[in-house]
């Protein structure tokens, strides 16, 4: 039973966005008995609405509002208006995510101390350590049902994994498994086990994969303390003369503007929309954007070093069968500057269906070189490379000077240049990925360029000192006490690991802090 709250109820906590960060935070606050309204720009599409159709699902729930790109990254050339693949729907990108759930390594909270200054990089230590997050990692893993934690068995390996594993063994890699996945390997928490459907990126029809849409939000709603208002796109956050936020203005399904009052506002729109919203909320009191006295809102945009390696063999693989990403090699994830770069990377199995493969294998390519590769589709194995990229101040989400969206607001431009460290890491990862497949007899390998960003991070970063970042160790804005950032934009640095487990752990930790601050009357 969902609780409807009045627009003028200024006792509620308003959470903007219902994905990994917002959906988890909203649910956790409600479970603690706190009145919470989650405003979500997209619609509510339940499992029955999912289809095993790559372009169909992409069109149905992706964030397709106008965005622009600049910089030397290849995405700007291949997908100039699609810098990122983010979901606009209740559940956010956890509807499409693959489920890989890894903890950060201890040193990845202390990049500046461990790596030292890296020219051109805006490195900083997090204001928290692994030990601060460990209890919340534990709680998050339990909640999400992460395999290989809490006595949950690993998923069985599919064809794509078996090829990776054979190559990893030949190369002497020792940390290759079906990984830690927020996908039920057996029924758990009222959700079924994975049926090896193979369309994890299109929304899991069996609910085996954790998503805030069906694994969190309904639990929050059942308390009567959570209202999730879909098709409510927040346009700006408002504040009073003292600089405290008082509520938000959003556009409802009909495009009418509504004002929801709030005691506390938490921003979790993912790392492009969250800084855009703060920048679009500029006022005479906050002329450079809300909570932006540091000038760091929108800066230090990170997207992980990514790339893929696909390989063709002389015999069938049928990689598309089964779980998309249940396979990982972790041996390259550590810190080892002798490889010619700082930070590390993971290699994870990945398969795309034929329609997406045509679009992403080598965007823009044509002719027989390309089509002969496509004809090897059923003999292909594939992996995704994902590693830590360097935060750079000039890599930024900024308001476009002229382009406006359907509400008349400046659209975001996403500027990204690869750092030399990112390029060195990608080259290394391409070589190792190809070597893995060559070791099992690949006849042809493809170093496939990055897709539109699925891991968007860092644009409202956490810092000890207010001049270095936007939020403090709790995700609370340095400048505005009752304003929080609750998504991946808080990340000070990106780590080598897929970010969602860390986003969820931070949200659970933030919920404890908010509840405690409310209880003690500070907020």
């Amino acid at each position, binding site marked *: 039973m969902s609780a409807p709250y009045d627009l003028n109820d200024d006792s509620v906590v308003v959470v903007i966005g219902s994905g990994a960060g917002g959906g988890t935070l909203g649910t956790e606050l409600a479970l603690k008995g706190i009145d919470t309204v989650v405003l979500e720009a997209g619609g509510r599409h339940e499992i029955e609405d999912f*289809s*095993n*159709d*790559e*372009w169909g699902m992409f069109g149905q729930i992706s964030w397709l509002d106008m965005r622009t790109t600049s910089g030397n990254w290849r995405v700007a050339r291949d997908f100039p208006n699609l810098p990122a693949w983010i979901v606009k729907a209740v559940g956010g990108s956890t509807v499409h995510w693959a489920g890989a759930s890894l903890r950060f390594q201890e040193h990845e909270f202390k990049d500046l101390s461990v790596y030292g200054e890296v020219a051109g990089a805006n490195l900083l230590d997090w204001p928290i350590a692994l030990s601060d997050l460990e209890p919340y990692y534990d709680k998050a893993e339990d909640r999400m049902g992460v395999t290989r934690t809490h006595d949950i068995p690993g998923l*069985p*390996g*599919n*064809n794509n994994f*078996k*090829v990776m*594993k*054979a190559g990893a063994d030949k190369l002497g890699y020792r940390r290759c498994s079906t990984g830690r996945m927020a996908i039920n390997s057996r029924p758990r928490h009222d959700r079924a086990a*994975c*049926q*090896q*459907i*193979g*369309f994890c990126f299109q929304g899991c*029809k*069996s609910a085996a994969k954790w998503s805030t849409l069906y694994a969190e939000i309904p639990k929050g709603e059942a308390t009567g303390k959570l209202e999730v208002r879909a098709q409510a796109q927040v346009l700006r956050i408002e504040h009073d003369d003292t600089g405290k936020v008082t509520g938000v203005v959003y556009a409802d399904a009909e495009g009418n503007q509504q004002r929801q009052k709030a005691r506390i506002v938490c921003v979790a729109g993912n790392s492009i929309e969250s800084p855009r919203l703060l920048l679009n909320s500029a006022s005479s009191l906050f002329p450079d954007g809300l909570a932006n006295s540091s000038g760091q809102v929108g800066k230090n945009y990170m997207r992980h070093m990514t790339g893929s390696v696909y390989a063709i063999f002389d*015999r*069938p*693989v*049928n990689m*598309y*069968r*089964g*779980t998309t990403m249940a396979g990982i090699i972790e041996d390259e994830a550590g810190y080892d500057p002798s490889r010619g770069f700082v930070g590390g990377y993971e290699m994870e199995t990945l398969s795309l*269906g*034929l*329609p997406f*493969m*045509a*679009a992403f294998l080598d965007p*823009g390519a*044509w*002719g*027989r070189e*390309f*089509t002969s590769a*496509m*004809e090897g*589709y*059923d*003999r292909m194995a594939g992996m995704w490379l994902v590693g830590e990229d360097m935060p750079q101040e000039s890599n930024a989400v900024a308001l476009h000077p002229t382009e406006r969206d359907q509400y008349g607001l400046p659209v975001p431009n996403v500027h990204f240049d690869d750092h030399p460290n990112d390029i060195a890491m990608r080259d290394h990862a391409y070589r190792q990925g190809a070597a893995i497949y060559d070791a*099992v007899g690949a006849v042809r390998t493809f170093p496939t360029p990055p897709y539109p960003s699925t891991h968007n991070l860092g644009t409202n970063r956490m810092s000890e000192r207010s001049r270095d970042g936007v939020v403090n160790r709790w995700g609370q804005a340095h400048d505005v006490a009752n304003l929080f950032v609750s998504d991946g934009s808080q990340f000070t640095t990106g780590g080598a690991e897929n970010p969602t487990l860390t986003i969820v752990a931070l949200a659970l930790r933030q919920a404890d802090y908010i509840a405690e601050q409310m209880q003690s009357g500070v907020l």
Partner: protein
Amino acid sequence: MRVVDRRTQVSRRGFLKGGSAATAGLVVLSVSSGMITGPTGAWAISVVNLQTATMQTLIQMARDIYPHDRLADRFYAAAVAGYDEQAGSDPAVKEMIESGVADLDGLAEARHARRYAEVGWEAERVALLREIEEGALFRTLRSGLVVGLYNNPEVWPKFGYEGASAEQGGYLERGFDDIDWV
């Protein structure tokens, strides 16, 4: 391990959206005013707003951009047939296509003394396409084909791709781990 049967499953005559045909290197189509018919008469599309010869050229370009000898002409025809309707509703599209094809034919006439669609070797046609690949016609056609050709469920078995699986219970009992050679 279970592999996908690539043989063409259906064979019936009809206007596109159905039908089947043998494969061909140079697209051999019978072109009459307002109608393009496949070589064995197994399929046909009507052309109302573009010149019929223009549609023939688009079909040839489609095959030359993404040549798959396993795919019959009808799949390429299906992927570009929609431009006729677009040309009917948007004069700018019609102009872009007609003038783009005229330019391409001009290049073909200059090099080979015949229209693009009648140049005999794929390599010669591809060399002509390389000269126009930055132009509006080529870019529109190529990016449209990525979806128009490869998102057609009828072509998937030809690549060994099985498409939707949830309805069949996923691959848990249907070969998700049946690889037998690693």
